[in-house]
């Protein structure tokens, strides 16, 4: 090979990309060729100048005013770091049952006019079916039970509207939500909501668990899929049946 043929190898060697065997052959040639040694040195010098020139052209710092200009621009435009989401999944989780009940009542009351007052008959027995005013428990039990009606319950002359809202209510909180609703229609000093915790509650006994449902417990709720008895796609039907059986067992 003559010097012309080695020129490409010289460039590759200067760039550090020449293979080992070719490098060996080039080294052998360079040992006996001053012109090629000079050519290699020139290419290496040029590459060093290019690297130095690039770094030097960029070796500057922005002015000290850049950060202030960015802040001023953000303030002028009212830019936010993230969009403000009023209601997100993360915002739902810590909402208490009381706040959730208030929200549902606000929406529902806005859709209905106040019913005409009618004192409820004393001594009414609890019925097995839940009231049909749009609220349903998160997990309807297999054996439905009627909740006691407040003496101040006002019987609406209108046909009850079909449930339009579904709200997730913690098991055991159903009575408390109903009591809240009743107290809103006829607020009295002794209404359940004003006395969320009973000042003079019953002595602990067999009925304590039942009456504890009257008290509104403020705690974060967990958003879970509604169990309507129909398995979700991919869900285990046996698991859905087992959950209802566990509910019945816990109520005994």
């Amino acid at each position, binding site marked *: 090979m003559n010097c012309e043929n080695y020129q490409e190898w010289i460039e590759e060697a200067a*760039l550090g990309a020449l293979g080992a065997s070719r490098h060996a052959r080039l080294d052998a040639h360079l040992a006996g060729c001053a012109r090629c040694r000079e050519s290699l040195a020139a290419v290496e010098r040029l590459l060093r100048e*290019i690297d130095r020139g690039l770094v030097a052209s960029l070796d*500057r710092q922005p002015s000290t005013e850049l*950060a202030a200009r960015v802040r001023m621009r953000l303030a002028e435009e009212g830019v936010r770091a993230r969009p403000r989401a009023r209601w997100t999944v993360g915002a739902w989780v810590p909402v208490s049952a009381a706040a959730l*009940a208030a929200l549902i009542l606000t929406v529902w009351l806005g859709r209905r006019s106040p019913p005409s007052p009618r004192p409820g008959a004393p001594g009414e027995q609890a019925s097995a079916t839940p009231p049909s005013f749009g609220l349903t428990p998160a997990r309807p039990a297999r054996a439905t039970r009627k909740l006691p009606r407040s003496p101040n319950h006002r019987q609406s002359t209108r046909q009850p509207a079909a449930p339009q809202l579904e709200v997730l209510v913690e098991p055991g909180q159903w009575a408390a939500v109903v009591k809240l609703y009743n107290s809103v229609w006829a607020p009295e000093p002794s209404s359940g909501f004003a006395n969320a915790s009973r000042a003079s509650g019953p002595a602990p006994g067999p009925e304590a668990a039942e009456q504890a449902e009257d008290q509104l417990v403020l705690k974060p709720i967990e958003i879970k899929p509604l169990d309507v008895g129909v398995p979700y796609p991919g869900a285990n039907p046996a698991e859905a049946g087992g959950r209802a059986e566990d509910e019945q067992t816990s109520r005994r």
Partner: protein
Amino acid sequence: MDALVEALSEAAGSLDSAPEQRIDRELEREFELRLADCSGLAFRVALGVLHSPADAEDVAQEAFVRAYRNFSELRERERFRAWLARTAWRLAIDRQRSAIRRQRRERAAASEPSAPSVEEAAAEREFQGRLAEAVDALPDKLRRVVILSAVEGYDMRETASLLGLPAGTVRSRLHRARKLLAEKLR
């Protein structure tokens, strides 16, 4: 009744606003750290394209404003740096295409003060001018690698992280770019 419902709604709202304000303050504090840490990066990337400090600062400012809008997704440091470098690059390229900005750059370069040794300074300016033209003439992929490598002091790992490319790809493109520059400047 209305007062009762309103009070409950306000209570529910107060439960949500406090954590949100804390998150906003935390985001702003983190952004200030990024602004201090990465202002040089955005500026130098833009400078490599525009060759004008004034234009480069304008581009860096715009890049940071855009980064702030998307900061909730860019909180991690490496991700922020890579996003910022890409955005500064795109903005600088867009700006370079404007003929008006190019004229301003030429006027700014002509008004720079001379170095103590006039001949050396002239030779250096002449070389820098030719180098800048040669870099501008590179294909975009090679040009980006050359400039970011120079910004990062030829740290292959950092350059690969900024570009989102494997280090081997960066090395290969840098090799091709330097070869083309050497041929042009010989």
